[in-house]
């Protein structure tokens, strides 16, 4: 037998048991270390913020396939656990509506299209005309209308009279060869503050 082979065989016989012994010793040591280690104390000593600062969250998230992730989420089951009433109860609706620009909102509304969907005839048929008439002060409406007509007639008469005044005045000025517009007024009425 080659002396090298004999040496190699002897080393193997010694190394294997030593290796096995070292393995068992290491496992035992690690086990003892872990048992004696206070993990909470260790975690408290870690500066989590510093660790997180060094993490590239954007890069990590960019590698996440969100669609794939969400496809695994059962949204219905998730929402079934949500107490919507309690959630809405915490919403300040007045403040929310106050932030809405109603004018801008209405500018985007196509009123013609909206009204085209309304059945006006059906709407009118639902009105209780008898109650409406009973609650309407028809006397006031008629009086207002009559007053308006009287006012129109009075304005027309006065307007015609002023027109005739000016026509006569124009002819008199022409006959007398008088210059000027003919629109004169007392001093206090030309300058109201002077008359008071």
């Amino acid at each position, binding site marked *: 037998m080659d002396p090298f082979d004999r040496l190699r065989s002897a080393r193997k016989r010694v190394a294997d048991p030593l290796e096995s012994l070292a393995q068992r010793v290491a496992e035992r040591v690690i086990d003892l270390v872990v048992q004696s280690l206070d993990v909470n104390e260790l975690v408290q000593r870690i500066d989590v913020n510093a660790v997180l600062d060094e993490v590239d969250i954007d890069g990590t998230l960019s590698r996440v396939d969100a669609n794939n992730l969400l496809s695994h989420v059962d949204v219905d089951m998730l929402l079934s656990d949500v107490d919507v009433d309690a959630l809405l109860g915490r919403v300040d609706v007045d403040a929310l509506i106050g932030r809405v620009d109603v004018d801008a909102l209405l500018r985007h509304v196509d009123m013609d299209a909206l009204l085209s969907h309304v059945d006006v005839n059906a709407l009118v048929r639902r009105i209780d005309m008898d109650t409406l008439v009973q609650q309407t002060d028809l006397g006031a409406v008629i009086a207002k209308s009559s007053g308006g007509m009287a006012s129109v007639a009075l304005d027309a008469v006065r307007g015609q*009279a002023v027109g005739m005044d000016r026509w006569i005045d124009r002819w008199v000025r022409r006959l007398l060869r008088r210059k000027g517009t003919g629109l004169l007024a007392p001093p206090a009425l030309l300058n109201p503050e002077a008359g008071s």
Partner: protein
Amino acid sequence: MSSQARAAGWVSAQGHYAGAASRFLAFIVDAVISWGLFSAALAGISFSINVITGHSVAWHRGNIVVTVIFAAWELFYFGYCWGAGGKTPGMAVLGVRVVRADGADIDPWRGAVRALAFPLSFLFCGLGFVGILLQREHRALHDLIAGTAVVYAWDARASRLRFLARG
């Protein structure tokens, strides 16, 4: 001229001396109102006398008593209206009013003087009214005596708003 432009012209007339047509029409309205009231009063008195005494009373135009009472009534009608508010019902309809010559509001005694001087303008075929036509300030004889003038008092601003509202 468009109707809106015409309305703008009426607005500018406010406070200016009123012309002959407006004043004449106002007088016609006043004459009708005062005569109507006087006739109604006479009819009421006749009816009352008839009911109380059983005798019918007829009022004749030529009756001097009726003429004097009518003159007094006209004097009161115009004098009271001018002195109290500067305008008679006819003037209110036509939108004119009596003011002092300088444009200030008329006082009661000046209204009474104007009413007393008013008949003088009818003398000599209404010669006193010629001033309304020919004078720049459109003042008649009774205006000159009482120191008054007649101006447009029509609330033209409200009128124009009404006009614009009518479209």
